[in-house]
């Protein structure tokens, strides 16, 4: 042992000092607000999401401007008596909503679905009183899905069956062609669908 080790070796913290230190530190720890890891992670996640969202919007604008966002590439038509058509953009958001008859227009006035993800939009519309009473009466819903997205028609069907609706769902090829106009064609077979035109599926 060198001299310094010997000289300093006698210096120790006695038990009283250790206890006192712990008591004081613990007291201060208890009064501090606990910024738990989870809170921090959530805060960071929110911040990240906000930044990411801004970047996405910026990219969209950079990538072709507002009209890329606002351009519908898919359509979902619901016919039960209120008849509505939703135009959906490439990010699955409703960018157009059209009433195909008076009841349809009124429905869209009551329930604003623009900007929503199409699944949420459907939920919102289905939640409307008038639609609910159609479901309860057992009316049959006719849906038409025009989209390149293969999963969209499945999503629509699962929403329908989830609400106990009587429905059938038609898929029309892809969305680049013309879409339904004002004369509400129920169950239109007009599309030159890639899956052989008809493709009826019946629910319930």
């Amino acid at each position, binding site marked *: 042992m060198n001299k310094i080790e010997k*000289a*300093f070796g006698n*210096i120790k913290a006695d038990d009283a000092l250790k206890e006192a230190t712990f008591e*004081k530190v613990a007291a201060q720890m208890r009064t*501090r607000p606990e910024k738990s890891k989870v809170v921090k992670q959530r805060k960071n996640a929110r911040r990240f999401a906000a930044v990411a969202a801004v970047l996405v919007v910026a990219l969209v604008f950079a990538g072709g401007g507002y009209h890329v966002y606002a351009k519908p590439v898919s359509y979902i038509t619901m016919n039960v008596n209120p008849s509505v058509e939703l135009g959906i953009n490439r990010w699955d958001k409703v960018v157009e909503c059209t009433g195909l008859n008076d009841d349809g227009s009124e429905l869209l006035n009551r329930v604003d679905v623009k900007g929503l993800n199409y699944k949420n939009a459907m939920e919102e519309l289905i939640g409307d009183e008038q639609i609910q009473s159609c479901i309860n009466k057992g009316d049959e819903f006719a849906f038409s899905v025009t989209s390149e997205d293969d999963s969209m028609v499945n999503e629509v069907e699962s929403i329908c069956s989830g609400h106990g609706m009587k429905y059938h769902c038609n898929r029309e090829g892809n969305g680049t062609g013309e879409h339904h106009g004002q004369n509400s064609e129920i169950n239109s077979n007009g599309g030159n669908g890639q899956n052989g035109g008809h493709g009826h599926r019946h629910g319930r």
Partner: protein
Amino acid sequence: MRSEEDVKKAIYTYSDSIKRICILYLKSPQDTEDIMQNVFLKYAMHDKPFETEEHRKAWLMKVAVNACRDLLKSFYRKKIALTDVIPEMAADEDSQDGYVLEAVLSLPAKYKEVIYLKYFEGYDGGEIAQITGRKLNSVYKLLDRGRDMLAQRLGGDDLE
């Protein structure tokens, strides 16, 4: 924030080392207590895990060194008799230890830090550089000069 268990364990394991750092800078007993609380509270609030016990100890020492330096900077401290701060010394008047202690403590801060860390704690140059926040070369130079100065004060005895 670390658990109270964790903090308690750290206090019981490392208080001796932290107290010695405080004495190195010759704090009054009151200051020693304050600095110890300061150091362990910082430990409590430090969430990053330590890879080894050595890592934990070195971190604590670094915080203690900085806390002591800060206190030194803040205002002039009165000189206090060693026996006030280290009661064990009063009992053992014949021993050489008192002289060695006084000699080390009388060195300027930058020398006594490195001398203490090397000869008491046994850290190597790289570890001392981390704890004191200095460059490796500076540490070696300080050790050399520190040893010379100590040798002069202790009358040419060598340290072993």
